[in-house]
C-alpha cells in the first residue's frame, strides 16, 4: 500500500535538464516564480508558456506527469478562478440574481488561473528532473549564500537528507505495525471518518515510539563516527558548475528579460 510512495516525484531520464547542476535549476525556478508575478498580461503568460514547453521538451518528461502534478491543486485553481471572477468590480457583462460577472473579473480570473498553472508546472519540472539528493545538496549550497541563515545551512540539509533517508524505513515500519494490529483484530476500513481517524492511534503511537528510538540510535551511531556538526566538514560529492549551466543561466536571464518586456506590450482584453 505504501510501496509506491515517492517524495519529490523524480522522473529519471538522461536529458540535459537532468544533467544541469541542481543550483542552476533551483535558482532558475526561483527567478521564474518571481517573474511570473512581474508579468501582467496575456503576452507574458504566452511567453512563459513557450519557455516552459521548451524546457519540458528538453527534459523528455512526459506531459502526463506534469499534468498529474496539477491534479491535487485543481480545487485551489478553480476556487481562485471563481473568486476572482465573482468579486472583481468593473463593467457588468451579465448578471444572475446577485452574481455579477464583470469584464475585469474575467480578465483577472484568466490571468490568475494561468499564473497558478504555470507556477505549479514550472516547479514540478524542477522536482521531476532533480533527485532528492541533488535537491538537498543544491539547497544547502544556496542557503550558504544567504547571509542570515548560512549558519544553519549544514544542519538544515542534514535534517532534510536524514528525513529523506528514513522515509522508506518508516513506511516499511508502518506497514509492519498495521499488519500486526490487523492480526490482532484491528479494523481500519469500516466506520465513519472519526472512527477511522481514531483507529489510526494504535498505528501512530508505536510508530512514534520506534521513530524516537531510531533517532536515538542514529545519533549514537553518528557520534561514534566523529560527527560534530558542520565545522571542518568536507564532502565526497561537490557541486561543480559546467558549461551547460552557463548557457542555461544565459537562456533564463534572456527569457526573464523578455517576460519583463511583455509588460510594455498593449494589454489584451478578452472581453
Amino acid at each position, binding site marked *: 500500500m505504501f510501496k509506491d510512495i515517492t517524495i519529490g516525484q523524480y522522473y529519471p531520464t538522461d536529458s540535459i535538464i537532468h544533467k544541469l547542476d541542481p543550483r542552476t535549476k533551483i535558482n532558475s525556478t526561483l527567478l521564474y516564480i518571481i517573474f511570473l508575478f512581474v508579468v501582467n498580461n496575456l503576452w507574458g503568460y504566452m511567453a512563459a508558456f513557450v519557455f516552459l514547453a521548451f524546457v519540458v521538451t528538453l527534459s523528455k518528461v512526459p506531459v502526463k506527469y506534469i499534468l498529474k502534478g496539477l491534479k491535487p491543486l485543481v480545487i485551489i485553481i478553480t476556487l481562485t478562478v471563481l473568486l476572482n471572477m465573482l468579486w472583481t468590480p468593473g463593467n457588468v457583462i451579465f448578471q444572475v440574481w446577485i452574481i455579477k460577472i464583470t469584464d475585469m473579473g474575467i480578465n483577472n480570473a484568466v490571468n490568475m488561473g494561468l499564473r497558478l498553472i504555470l507556477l505549479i508546472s514550472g516547479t514540478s519540472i524542477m522536482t521531476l528532473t532533480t533527485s*532528492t*539528493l541533488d535537491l538537498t545538496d543544491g539547497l544547502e549550497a544556496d542557503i550558504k549564500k544567504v547571509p542570515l541563515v548560512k549558519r544553519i545551512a549544514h544542519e538544515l540539509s542534514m535534517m532534510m*537528507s*536524514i528525513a*529523506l*533517508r528514513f522515509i*522508506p*524505513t518508516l513506511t*516499511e515500519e508502518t506497514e509492519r505495525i498495521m499488519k500486526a494490529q490487523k492480526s490482532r483484530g484491528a479494523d481500519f476500513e469500516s466506520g465513519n471518518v472519526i472512527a477511522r481517524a481514531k483507529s489510526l492511534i494504535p498505528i501512530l503511537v508505536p510508530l512514534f515510539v520506534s521513530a524516537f528510538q*531510531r533517532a536515538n*540510535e*542514529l545519533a*549514537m*551511531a*553518528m*557520534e*561514534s*563516527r*566523529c*560527527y*560534530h556538526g558542520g565545522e*571542518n*566538514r*568536507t*564532502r*565526497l*560529492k*561537490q557541486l561543480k558548475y559546467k558549461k551547460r549551466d552557463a548557457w542555461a543561466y544565459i537562456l533564463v536571464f534572456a527569457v526573464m528579460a523578455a517576460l519583463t518586456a511583455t509588460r510594455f506590450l498593449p494589454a489584451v482584453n478578452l472581453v
Partner: protein
Amino acid sequence: MLRWQYSNWWRRTLKRAFAYNLFYKITMDKLIEVKNVTFMYDEENEPGIKALDNINLEIYKGEFLGIAGRNGSGKSTLAKLLNGLHLPNRGDVFVMGQNTKDENKLLDIRKTVGMVFQNPDNQMVATIVEEDVAFGPENLGLPREKLRQLVDESLKAVGMEKFKDKKPHKLSGGQKQRVAIAGVLAMHPDLIVLDEATAMLDPSGRKEVLATVKRLNQEGVSIVMITHYMEELTEANRIIVIDEGKCVLEGPPCEVFRKQELLEQMRLGVPEIVEISNALRREGVKLSNNILTMDELVDELCRLA
C-alpha cells in the same frame, strides 16, 4: 595457499595451547584499558541501576576479543564506554593512553575505536551507499581525493564495491551491516567494536558479517565482538563473559567453553561441537582440550579410533 593454511594452523594451535595470558600480556600492545569502571544508569535517583560493577579489562592490538553475556548483563554498556559514548561514573577508560573523559581527545578516540551497532537501518546516514561510507571521513575533514580513495578501498575490503551507487534500504541485512563496517573502516580504526551486530541478521547474513570480520582481523584490525551467540566466538583469541555487570570468566574459547554448566547458569549456550565433545569427555573419551570445530572433532575421533 597450503603454506598459508599451515602457518595459520600453527598460529591457532600455538595461541590455544600456550599460556595465552602470558603471551598477550607480554607481547601485545595495550589498545584499551578499562580500570575499575562502575557505570550506573539513572544516577539521579538513588540508588540508580548499576549496569557495570568495578570492571577491569584490557584490549590488545590485533586481538579478536569476544564479550559474551545474556540480555541485561551490561555488555552493550561496556561497548559504549569504549569510545566515550558513555562516561564511567567511577574509574577510567583509556584508549591508546587517552582518557575518554577528556573531551578534546574524543574525536581521536572515536577515530581509533569504530563501532557497529545492532540495527543496520539505524546507523545509515546517507541515501546512497558510498555517501554513507564517506560520512566518517567527511566528519574528519579529509580532502576530497582522499575521501574517494578511502571509500573505494573500504567498500572493497568488505566486498561491497558493486553496490556503491545503491540505496541502503534496497540491500539485505548482511549487506547493510557490511556497509556499516565499511563506514567504520574508512576512518582506519585500530579497533572495531561490534555491538551485537549480527543479532538482527538471518543465518546467511550472519555468516557474511563474521567472514568479513575475520578477514579484517587477519589484516591486523583488532575486533571486539559482543554477542550472546557463543558460536560466533569460536574464532576469538579470548572471551570475556559478563554477568550482572561483572567479569565472570576470561580465557581462550576452549577454556571458557569447558565450563558449560556455569555458562548455562548464565543462559549462555556453548557451540554444538563443544557440547558434544564435553559430553564425550564426561563419558570418558580422552579428547584433547582444544576442540572447537567440526573438523577438529572429526580429526580427534579418527585419531582415537
